[in-house]
Each structure stands twice: as C-alpha cells, then as structure tokens.
C-alpha cells in the first residue's frame, strides 16, 4: 500500500463527507427549479447541519442507550461505506473487505441501528417507521444480491475494485442486456434503500405516510444532524457506487498520482451530480406509492435481477 493510496482514500472520505450535504442541497435545488421556486441554495443543508450541531441535546424519558448510540452507529456505517467503496480510486486501503456482499451487509447494519432507535423511542410513530423500514429492507436484499451476482459473472469476483477494473478494460461487459437489467434493478433498490420517492417521501410532514422520517422524529439537535448527515452520505455512496459500477471512467488506479486523484474526485462529483439531478427530476413527476404497492415494485426489481443473472448465464459468448 503506497502513500498515495492512503491519500486517495482520504480524498475519497473527504469528498463524501463534505459532498453529501451538498448532494442533498443539489437535489432540493433541482426540485425547486422544476417547481419554479428559487430554492435555498446548494449550501443550505450545510447551514442546517451547522446550526443543528450547536443546538441543545434532548434525551427523551424512557429511552435506553440504543437511542443515544444509534446516530453514531448509523454515521459510522456510512463513513465505513465511504471508505470501502471505490469512489475516487480502485485500490482503497480497505480493499480486502471491498466485497459487494460485505458492503450490502454494512448498509443493512446501519438500517438495523436506525430501526432499533425507532423502536426504542417507544412512540407509535417510531415503531411504525421501524416496522416499515425493516419490511422494505428485507425485501430489497434479494434484489441487491442478484444484481451484484449478475455484475460479478463477467469478472468472476464480487470485489468492487476488480469489478470496476473489468469494466474499464472491457466496456462491452456493461453495455449488454445483463448490464441494463442489473442497472435498472439496482436503481430501484437504491431508491428503496435510500428512502426516496416513490418508496418514501423524504419531505413529508404527515406522520402516517412516513418511513424513514418517523424513526427520527424524536431526535433533536446534534443527534438529528448526525442522522441526516449519515443518510445523505448513504445516498451519496450508493449513487457513486452505481455510477462507478457502470461508468467507472475517471476513477484513479491502484497506485495513483496526485493528478489522477484530483481527476477521480472531479469525475465522481460530475457523475453523482448528474445522477442526482436525474433522480430529483424524476421525483418531481412522481407520486409516492402506497406502502403495500412497494412489495410489487420490489418483486419487479427482483425479477429484473433474476433475468440479469440468467441472461448473463445464457448469453455468455
């Protein structure tokens, strides 16, 4: 492991941690633009975070240490994901664990901490959000793994660095039916996993329609800030993963130069910004699904993942 690999890892972490709130700001701004509004600006989530971190901490009576620890655990899983997933360079210091299945597991770990916090508040809304979140997460799991499976067939490995290296050397492997099906399936599960429309509405004020928001209703001040920061990082990492799995161009190699690292940062910023703009635009024209229609969506994405794997198995030439 060279010094530059560590530098690249640091640059990657910094990009995600600093960039995640900006991503949320960008998505809000895109939405505002479509609605003809001015919008709060891309920096607004950072202002919100800064302010929340300076506010009073509140411990609701009757909660346990899980409530206090959950924001830290959720944030830790997000930071861990940002360190594992190759975003700026393929050879991260954590390459031995950069296995897509492990990444999915870490993602899930954050979800579990969040749902436990929701239950721990002991309010009806917290439990409701937790119950819905875990249902969706449980149904998302098969699709993610199948999409990963489909992508790993040409490479013969689920190691993220290896996957991206294969795509770089052989672009045809993603410009295939398998690639397209896996892409659609992954987009659907990322939307579900990140709690975006049409699965969950991040801007809702109506408790009964909430999924993610319902679990954090009791959080205030710094803990709320950490939760929001973590969920923004989660979305950023997922979008960056999507971008790099299908369009890895611009990513720095195993032993990068400083210039390559900077190019990598620039490339991923552009890619994620484009994806986020597209996602936010889609959200403007979309209504939230009823909760019990969500399994249909996930069954559909499961089917796409399955088709991706079988077509990869049958169309290999």
């Amino acid at each position, binding site marked *: 492991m060279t010094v530059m690999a560590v530098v690249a890892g640091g640059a990657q972490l910094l990009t995600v941690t600093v960039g995640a709130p900006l991503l949320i700001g960008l998505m809000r701004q895109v939405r505002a633009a479509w609605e003809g509004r001015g919008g709060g600006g891309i920096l607004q989530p950072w202002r919100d975070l800064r302010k929340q971190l300076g506010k009073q901490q509140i411990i609701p009576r009757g909660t346990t240490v899980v409530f206090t620890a959950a924001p830290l655990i959720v944030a830790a899983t997000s930071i861990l994901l940002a360190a594992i997933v190759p975003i700026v360079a393929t050879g991260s210091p954590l390459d031995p664990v950069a296995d897509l299945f492990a990444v999915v*597991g870490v993602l899930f770990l954050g979800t579990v901490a969040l749902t436990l916090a929701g239950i721990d508040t002991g309010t009806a809304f917290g439990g409701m959000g937790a119950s819905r979140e875990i249902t969706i*997460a449980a149904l998302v799991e098969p699709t993610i793994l199948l999409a990963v499976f489909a992508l790993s067939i040409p490479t013969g490995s689920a190691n993220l660095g290896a996957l991206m290296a294969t795509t770089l050397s052989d672009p045809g492997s993603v410009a295939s039916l398998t690639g397209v099906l896996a892409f659609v399936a992954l987009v659907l599960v990322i939307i579900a996993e990140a709690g975006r429309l049409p699965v969950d509405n991040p801007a809702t004020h109506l408790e009964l329609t909430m999924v993610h928001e319902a679990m954090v209703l009791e959080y205030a001040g710094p803990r709320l800030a950490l939760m929001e920061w973590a969920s923004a990082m989660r979305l950023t990492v997922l979008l960056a993963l999507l971008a790099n799995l299908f369009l890895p161009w611009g990513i720095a190699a195993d032993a990068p130069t400083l210039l390559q690292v900077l190019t990598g940062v620039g490339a991923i910023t552009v890619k994620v910004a484009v994806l986020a703009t597209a996602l936010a635009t889609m959200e403007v024209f979309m209504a939230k699904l009823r909760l019990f229609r969500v399994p249909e969506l996930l069954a559909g994405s499961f089917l796409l993942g399955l088709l991706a794997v079988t077509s990869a198995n049958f169309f290999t030439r």
Partner: protein
Amino acid sequence: MRTIAVDVPTVEVKNHPGRHHVGCAAAGSATALIGAAGVWGGLVAVFGSAPQMSIGWLLPLSGVVLHLDPLGGFFSVLIGAVAVPVGVYTVGYARHERWPALSLTVLPLFVAAMLLVTAAGSIPTFLLAWELMALASVLLVITDHDRAEVRSAALFYAAMTQLGFVAILVGLMVMATSMGADRFTEMTVVPEPLRDVVFVLTVAGFGSKAGLVPLHAWLARAHPEAPSPVSALMSAAMVTLGVYGIIRIDLVLIGPGPRWWAVLLLLVGAASALYGVLQASVATDVKRLLAYSTTDNMGLITMALGASLLLSGAGAPEAAAIAAVAALLHLLAHAAFKSLGFMAAGSVLAATGLRDLDRMGGLARPMPVTTVLFGVAALGACGLPLGAGFVSEWLLVQALVHASTSGDVVVALAAPLAVGAVALTTGLSVAAMVKAFGIGFLARPRSAAARQARESAASMLTAMVIVAVGCVVLALAPVAAAAVVARAVNVMPTARSAAPAVDFAAVIRLPGLGGSIAPGLLATAFVAALLAAVVAMRWRARRRPPTVQLPLWACGADDLTPRMQYTATSFAEPLQRVFNDVLRPASDIDVTHHSESRYMVSAITYRNRIADALEIRLYQPVVTGVKRAAEVVRRAHNGSVHLYLAYGALGVLVVLVIAR
C-alpha cells in the same frame, strides 16, 4: 407410571431446599464435565486419531463400536462446547425453576447420548445412541409436566421423533443388509435402486430431527415448552445431529449421489430456510421465534450441503468445497448464537415469566447484561457483518456465485434462485431479530411483569458470557475454528482436496477464485469510523445549551402510555400482509355497538392468529386418518381376554406359515 416417577422428587424438594441446590449444582457440573470431555475427545479425533473401541458385551448380537473420525470429532466438539455453558447455566436456572430430580438426572445423560451418536462406529451403535438421545430429550421436554401445553407438545414431539426414528431404522437396515456390513469403516457401495431408497428414508428421518420443512412442526411446539437450557441444548446441539446424519450417511457413506439428491437437498433447504424465517418474523413468542429460526438456519446448512453436492458433480470442485466449509462453519455459528439466544430468553423467562414479546419491553434497564447478550445472539442470527453468522453466509453466497462458471443448465438455474433464497432469508431474519431484540428489550415495559424484572443469577450470566465470547470470536476471527473445520471437511467426498478451499487468516481468501473478506479489519475500521462519528459530533459542542431530559413528544398531548407502543404483532404486520398467501393468518375484528345507537362503538376486538399453515395442511389429514384407523382397530378390542389370546395364537400361526 409417570406420576410416580416425577411427583415423589417434587415432594422431596419442598422438604430439603438445600439438597435440591446440591442436586442442581451436581447436575450442572456433570453436564459441563461431560461436555468438556466431548470437546477434548473431539479435538483428539480431529487432530490425532482416536482409537477405535469395541465393547462386545454391551449390546447383544453386534456389540457397541465406537469410532470417532474427524467429522464425528467436529460434531463432538460442537456438542461439548454447547454443553459446557449450558451446564453452568443450569446450576442457576434449575434452582430457580425448581427442577424435579428426574430432569436433573437426565440432563447429563442427554449430553452423553448425543456425544455417543457422534462417536458411533456402527449402525446398531448409532441407532442405540440415537434412541437414547431421543428418549432423554422427551423426558427433558416434559420437565414442567403440570401444564397441559407441555404435555401436548411433548406427546407431539415424541410421536414425530419416533416416526423419524422408524424411517432412519428402516433406511439403515436396508443399507446394512445390502452391504453386508454394519461398521461404518467396512461399508462398500450400495446398489443403485436401494441407494435411492436409503437416501429418501434417511433424509426424511434426519430431516425431521433437523427440523426441515415439512417435518419441522415439532420444533415450534417442543422448544417453547421445554425448559430454556434444554431448548438451548436441543436447538444448538441435538438438531445439528440431524445434519450430521445427512452428512455421515448420505454424503459420506452412500454418496456422493446423483444430481437429483443435490436438487432435493437444495429444495428442502430453501423451503425450510424461507418458511422458517417467515414464521420467525411473524412469531410473537420469543422462544417460538428462536425455534423457527433454527429451522431457517438448518435450511441454510442443508442448502449448502446440496450446493456442495451439486457443484462437485458439475465440475466446480473449488466452489463445492467452499459450500461444504460454509455448512460446517454455519453449524458452529448457529450453535453459538442459538444457544446464547435460548439462554438469554430463559433468563428473561426466569426473571419475568414472560415469553410473549407483546408483553415484554423495557428490559434493557433492569437486565442490562442479558440485553447485551441477547443482542450479540440476535446480531449473529441476522447474518450481518460483525455477527457470528456473517462469514459462513458470505461463504455460501460466494460458492453459489462462483458456481455458474461451469456452464451447466441446472447450476445456471439453481444458483440465482438459491442466492435469492439466501438473501431473502437473511433479510427476513434481520426483521425477526430486530423485532425480538427491539420489542423485547428496548423502549418501555408493556406489562407489570416486565416492569418488575431483575437480573438473573451469576451462574447463568457467566455461562452466557462464555458463549457470547465464542460468538464474538467466530464473528471477528473465524480463523480460530479454521483448523477444526478444515479437518472435518476433508472427510466429506464433495470437498476432498489437497489444498484447503478457504484460506482462513486475518483476511479470508478463496484460493483459485476471486473474493476476500476480513471481518477483523472490518470491525477495526468500524470502530475507527465510530470514533470519527464521535469526533464529528463534538463540533460546536461548547455552544450547546446543557442537555435536558424531556418527556416523549406526544404530538402535544400529555405523556404517552406504554400501551401506545408498537408491539411484536403490529411490528410484523406489514410482513404478514406481504406474505399473506404463505402464512394464511386467521384474523377477525368484532365491533360491539352501543345499545343506544349503532353509530357508537363500545368495544372493538381484534384477534390475529398465525398458525403453522403447513402443519394444518399436512399434519391434520394424517392425524385424522390415524384416528379413523384407530376407530376401526378399536372394534377388535372388546376386553375379552380369550379373544386377545386368540389374536396372539393367530399371529403365531401366520408367522409360522410365512416363515416356513
């Protein structure tokens, strides 16, 4: 008969509490000692070679043959390792629950019988040990025989375990006669049609012991009603012997078999995994939940065995070996987290008398140690990183992912479906475990019993801490178990190779195939990330006004009552709706109107019951049929001694004529 045997000691207990304490301590330590001996013997067998022993006089005709090879040694280690902490745990638990002397006596014998199964070197010895084990477990299940549910569960269990035994008996007898040998080491090839018969019979018999669908129904009945240390032993140790039987008989002795064996194992495994986890995710009784989770995990292990068989036949030996390693490693992991889970549930049961999650809650405050320990068990059962079950499930998925390189139709179709099944199982098991831990231990107490809970006895906590350490080791450094697993796997024909299939080290690699995972590194990185998050939260900390404790936000109303919390039933309701077609819950709502006006409601009753749909569909007809047959047979019973003697004489005549 039963009343005499059990009631007398209870009277004794009342008179001499001191003697009962001694009895509990003796039984617990005997169990632990036998377990330790099992671990030692197993390790000797795995790394050296245990001498073959033959005791001719003990069993008429064939004698008792003991032979512990590395595979048997592996299971012996597993059972012993479960028995040691369970023994320690029993010291406190049995004293608290006032166990009768019979159960105290049988508990060490049960462990010994299980160890004897792993050491059996011939078919008669195996069958003898198996029957002893079954008998001992039935006696332990009816420890609390005053309650009708316990008696009914024990009866159900006894019937099923005996039917399973009959299947195994017939299967092994066919095998022995066709080969003309009854020692495992002297076995040769079984001719073709008989081999399939033996396979089906033994898989049915061992599958019923392992709790595989559709022969799983006894698990969900017997485990909740048995005392918790017994549940732990049964679920973590005895059930795995079903898997041992499948490996020993069907894979090692008469295998590796044709492709449909593998497909059958995969199908049965997938069905068990999915059905078990689905029932677990909607169960509200914590021990029932854990019992169904056993079905789920045994299903995963059976899937791994099936995958191993399929892949070795399809020309992917590396992937086949990985699947076999996954199966054995998951057996270990399951033994650790499941025994811990049952012991923690037992600790709650002893403290509160509650098994119903809908009435639990808020136990994290009065029982912090138990809560943490149950959390460790639940994390292991989830199969998530940092949990005990993660590495083995990862290995299973890797084996399936790398399978498709062989370009075989069955493999190409089975692998994605199997991955889907494993993934859905993992997802749902997370839901089940979050429910068990979150609803059971967090938030606020939902009943008076939960409010008055107190932490359990020191011996129980010590035992649980030992197992929890085992869970953590398996989760973070599975290399600790690598040597044992590697030796045992070498016995299996689907995984026999010179080079180890999985390179366990700080970073687990799969030689020959891409893919690596480093649970220790992952944990270290996680801790570092946690520290980073703590540091990030310190930003602007000095500006904050002092922290306050406030009541929960109740949308402006006054304080929320604990009754307003989500319960286990409501938590699982979305999943229940999604899988309505499989679970077939029976729910009805009664609305009682006021006498004055139809528009005013005085009470709404909501009832929701999720019975085991498979049990109703498959077992009920059989039971009805048997009852009807019994009615017919009853006509022959009229109480006349002469008639009975006539039956006997007739029987003798028939035998003479046939055997002429």
